[in-house]
């Protein structure tokens, strides 16, 4: 039981990090990014390549992958999303347009990965040794991934709540229309937030590659999980995403251990349905934790 | 006179802000009542709660003996309450006649087809838009859009008509026409609750007035008495004028 709980929390740490990136993209950039999971899997493949071809371990891999992911997100926003944002000022169709455009992007990235890596499951062996935590046996790579999630998540939290730039970002999440009145450049911040979200997705991908098998068409599942977490936590609510992510990790692990591994997604959806029916604003209300 | 609308201890909070606090008043069948007060006093919030745009935090809104507080706006519309909006709201992609037919088609005893078309034409004639049903709602002038909005509200054959600053933004000639139009509705026995800033119109139209200030009711009575009430004058003009 305890080992299940710890495994769940470790998995939930990655989920929370991934969901925080998505909530940044939706809450601040107003882009509902359906290609989010593909970005994540792409980073997982990148970590795999770096490790198997160049012998670079995933920790060092992060140092390479994260800046690249940030740049890629920055470019994608500028090239694809910015024109849609500009266009939607008249038509008010950003939500639908961004969903459709990123849906297209999903298939492009997935297609590229299928061509490059095929459709087989991939994994590599890194720090795959058991470590005893409070009497439970947990693989070292999982623990390392959890530690990384905590470090990255805490840094993000610090930046968003303690710095001037973070305040800017949160101001936009609360009221995008009023932000320009106090001298905030909404476009630039939105672009930055989108890039930051991409970076978080990539970091999640690297972590997942460390302890789990993955394949080119798996991204959709991660997008779905991240979306469910984001909604559970309340759209745009970072703290909510954190708690909901941990919760989902634990629930999934419990279901996989005690019910059936084939039903984890069903469990996720059941929670999702319950939240929609009972508290559509998220488990923690709208204003909590901002 | 029987009471049509009875508001009891109505309260609305937005987060920590109390927009409407413990307001009670009633409107009798066939009466035209003004809901007055300076900007931000909570009048429109009251109208929005009666029509169902917001659910009240607490309190009762009783229409002909039935508590309708917190019902969805479409349910309240079916109970017999129609409204116009502070900033006129037209359906821009529809024709003038279709704007009115929209209300005819979705009231409880709905009309459709030629019946609806004839009725819409009749209502448009009544508000002074006779023969202009085919025009695009978007092409109408401001006053004509207001007329169309009134025709749409009347199309529902409401028991209670809510007019939210329907007369504002009109020039003096148009104002005269507008006052005559509402007077004729009142003479036909329509019950009207209106929010208005133009005192000339309030004096001409309303036998009774309810005044709000900072979310609470400060006066309720015959229009002339209420408008002479020192508390009302202070609320509107500030202490220096009392």
């Amino acid at each position: 039981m305890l080992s299940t709980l710890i495994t769940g929390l470790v998995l939930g740490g990655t989920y929370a990090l991934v969901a925080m990136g998505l909530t940044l993209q939706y809450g601040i950039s107003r882009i509902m990014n359906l290609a989010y999971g593909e970005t994540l899997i792409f980073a997982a493949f990148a970590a795999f390549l770096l490790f198997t071809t160049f012998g670079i371990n995933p920790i060092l891999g992060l140092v390479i992958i994260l800046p690249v992911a940030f740049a890629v997100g920055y470019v994608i926003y500028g090239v694809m999303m910015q024109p849609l944002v500009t266009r939607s000022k008249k038509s008010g169709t950003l939500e639908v347009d961004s969903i459709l455009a990123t849906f297209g992007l999903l298939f492009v990235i997935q297609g590229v990965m299928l061509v490059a890596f095929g459709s087989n499951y991939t994994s590599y062996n890194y720090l795959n040794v058991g470590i005893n935590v409070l009497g439970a046996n947990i693989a070292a790579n999982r623990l390392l991934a959890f530690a990384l999630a905590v470090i990255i998540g805490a840094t993000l939290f610090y930046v968003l709540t303690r710095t001037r730039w973070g305040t800017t970002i949160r101001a936009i999440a609360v009221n995008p229309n009023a932000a320009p009145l106090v001298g905030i450049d909404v476009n630039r911040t939105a672009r930055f937030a989108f890039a930051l979200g991409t970076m978080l997705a990539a970091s999640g991908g690297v972590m997942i590659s460390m302890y789990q098998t993955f394949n080119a068409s798996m991204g959709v599942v991660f997008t779905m999980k991240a979306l469910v977490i984001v909604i559970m936590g309340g759209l745009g609510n970072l703290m909510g995403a954190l708690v909901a992510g941990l919760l989902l990790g634990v629930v999934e692990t419990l279901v996989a251990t005690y019910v059936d591994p084939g039903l984890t997604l069903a469990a996720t959806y059941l929670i999702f349905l319950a939240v929609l029916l009972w508290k559509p604003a998220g488990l923690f209300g709208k204003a909590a934790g901002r | 006179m029987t009471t049509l609308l009875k508001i009891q201890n109505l309260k609305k909070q937005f987060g920590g802000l109390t927009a409407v606090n413990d307001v009670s008043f009633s409107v009798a069948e066939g009466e035209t009542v003004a809901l007055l007060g300076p900007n931000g006093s909570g009048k429109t919030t009251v109208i929005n709660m009666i029509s169902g745009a917001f659910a009240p935090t607490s309190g009762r809104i009783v229409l002909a003996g039935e508590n309708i507080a917190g019902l969805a706006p479409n349910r309240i519309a079916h109970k017999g309450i129609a409204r116009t909006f502070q900033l006129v709201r037209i359906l821009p992609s529809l024709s003038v006649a279709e704007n009115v037919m929209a209300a005819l088609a979705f009231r409880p005893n709905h009309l459709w087809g030629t019946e609806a078309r004839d009725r819409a034409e009749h209502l448009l004639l009544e508000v002074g838009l006779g023969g202009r049903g085919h025009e695009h709602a978007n092409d109408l002038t401001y006053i004509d859009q207001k007329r169309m909005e009134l025709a749409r509200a009347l199309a529902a054959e409401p028991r209670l008509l809510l007019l939210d600053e329907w007369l504002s933004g009109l020039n003096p000639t148009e104002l005269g026409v507008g006052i005559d139009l509402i007077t004729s509705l009142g003479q036909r026995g329509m019950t009207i609750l209106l929010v208005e800033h133009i005192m000339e119109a309030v004096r001409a139209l309303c036998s009774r007035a309810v005044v709000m200030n900072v979310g609470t009711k400060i006066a309720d009575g015959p229009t002339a008495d209420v408008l002479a009430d020192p508390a009302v004058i202070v609320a509107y003009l500030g202490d220096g004028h009392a």
Partner: protein
Amino acid sequence: MTRTILGFALVALGLAALAWLPTQVGAYGVGLLLGMTGYVVLASAWALFSGPTRYVSLATVAFFGIGAYTVAVLSETLPYWAVLLVAAGIGLAVALVVGLATLRLAGVYFVIFTFGLAELIRQLVTWYEVNVTGTLGRYIFLPISPEQIYWQLLALAALTIGIGWLIARSRLGLALKVIGDDETVAAHTGIDISGVKLALFAVSATIITLVGAIQAPRWTYVEPSIVFNPTISFLTLIMALLGGANRLWGPALGAIPLFLLFEWLSANFPSHYSIILGLMFIAIVFVVPRGVLAGVEDLWKRLRRKGEAA
């Protein structure tokens, strides 16, 4: 009035010609016609709901798969027509549950929910088959020829477009226009907004379920990963968008060329298929966001205005 009658006569003539076509084109041709008609129905049914409400439904294959799988499970125990009815009933029930949970909320909740719905149902069916019935994969032996499938789909296409035509002339159609213009006014004139959306979603989902059920005998062998293939949702969406989801004939017009194109792509570029699809998708969003038909109409209006000015 005479124009309406003329229109109906033309459509009837066209339908008769299409129904006669299989006798002329051979087995491969019938296969193409069948697939194309299937997508015409899917795209039209999708647009029935998603066009006017602008709710992007990604659940097409969830309903399609429900239809197909119901046939696979029941084809030996019930007569064919009863199987179709049961399939439609299950599709309707699922649509009502999904709709009731999500359509009261902002559109984005609906999109997200439908995004994973097919995957969820696929996993549930797989789990059930493996753990409860102990079989994964089923055979369908129904004495139904491809021509018969094609005729059924053709009839369903006519029905779907007919429903679209009727809705545009009904109170429901007016309600949709009012909601599209101003939801606040819609609610205050007595329109039950979530009811309208739910009704449309249910109709659309039921038709999509029937497409899956009717096409199922084509496969002979069915398993969850075949009938819940997400590409179907994707193709349906892109076809309806290309033609224009707010036009009666738009989805059909988008479905025909794209179906042929995708057939050719999957035969000649199987490994680059999904990249090309994705790029086309992005191109449509950027170049013809309201569909080709609306684009052509705009162009036509501009040209006429220029002509009047000259």
